[in-house]
């Protein structure tokens, strides 16, 4: 259920108070941008989509019934808009590079053993920080896997909140999260070239 401060905020948003809009942006801008950035993978795109999200929330706030938390409703809009942006960018990219199967979505999905092409020698994992590989691997994951890792591991949302945000069962959250992390681990292991992969 929506927390008390959010309930008050929603009431004021429904009255179209400018101050309430400002308060909403202040309260959620970091999380919303972080979620969108985690899914889209580009800071400027994330910024643009986040603006659309806040304006859409202000516009459609009357459709928020209060059954769910306001924050998860907001994150769901952010997540959906981010995925739509990826599709749009992929279509644009596809038009620009027709014939090349180079959409980000298809890379790891099409190769369960670890995704993209072999790293060039200068991109070798030797000596590279794990954090760099994690960031890189995250960007290579399919959007639905990236999204769930961002919500859980970056934004620290509970399974219940993720389920509400994605409108799926908690069991789905657990299994999708496990698969997402597993694909990321494959990506990292492939670049570390570990003998005994976890």
């Amino acid at each position, binding site marked *: 259920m929506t927390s008390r401060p959010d309930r008050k905020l929603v009431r004021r948003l429904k009255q179209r108070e400018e101050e309430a*809009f400002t308060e909403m942006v202040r309260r959620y801008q970091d999380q919303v941008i*972080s979620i969108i950035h985690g899914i889209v993978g580009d800071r400027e795109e994330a910024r643009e989509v986040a603006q659309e999200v*806040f304006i859409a929330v202000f516009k459609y706030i009357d459709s928020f019934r209060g059954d769910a938390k306001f924050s998860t409703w907001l994150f769901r809009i952010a997540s959906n808009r981010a995925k739509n942006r990826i599709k749009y960018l992929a279509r644009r990219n596809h038009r620009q590079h027709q014939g090349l199967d180079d959409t980000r979505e298809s890379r790891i999905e099409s190769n369960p053993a670890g995704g993209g092409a072999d790293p060039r020698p200068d991109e070798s994992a030797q000596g590279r920080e794990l954090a760099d590989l994690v960031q890189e691997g995250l960007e290579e994951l399919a959007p639905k896997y990236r999204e769930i890792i961002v919500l859980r591991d*970056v934004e620290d949302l509970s*399974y219940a909140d993720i389920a509400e945000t994605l409108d799926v069962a908690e069991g789905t959250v*657990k299994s999708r999260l496990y698969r997402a992390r597993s694909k990321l*681990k494959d990506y990292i292991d492939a670049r570390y070239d570990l003998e005994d992969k*976890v």
Partner: protein
Amino acid sequence: MTESTNWPDPEQLPATGQQDRAARRQLFSAYVDGELPGDVSDALEQRLEADPAFEEAYRSYEAMITSLRDLPSQGADEAFLSDVQDSLRRRSGGQFFGAGSIGGSEISSFTSQTRVHELAAAAMLAVMLGAYLSFGPSTGDLTTSDSPRLDVPPQSAERHQ
């Protein structure tokens, strides 16, 4: 076997290699989130203590999760709030965060729906009031023939007596 039969038994899993890798990762994923049932979690911890190879496998998995959780924040910059306010101002035709004309924008058309309904209701009331004043008390009787005439004193006949 552990009590929770939906989970693989940590004691039976190989520490490394492809075999049962999915089961191993399933356990690790739930364990780092604190989602394993107590008995499975206990069994996993016993295995981690007893088997260095199994522990190394877990540490490798845990390091990835820690790296994810340590990723630098991608929060808003200082200009974001004013940018989004500016965007709302433009898209609302100046209705919000600025003195401008209303109309022609998504939000002003959306929010003005309520205003249109209010104006329509007010207009209807005005028409009804006008009709009442025009045809009501002075020129006609809006009550049915069976209704008592409230403007006629009921006891008028008594005064003649």
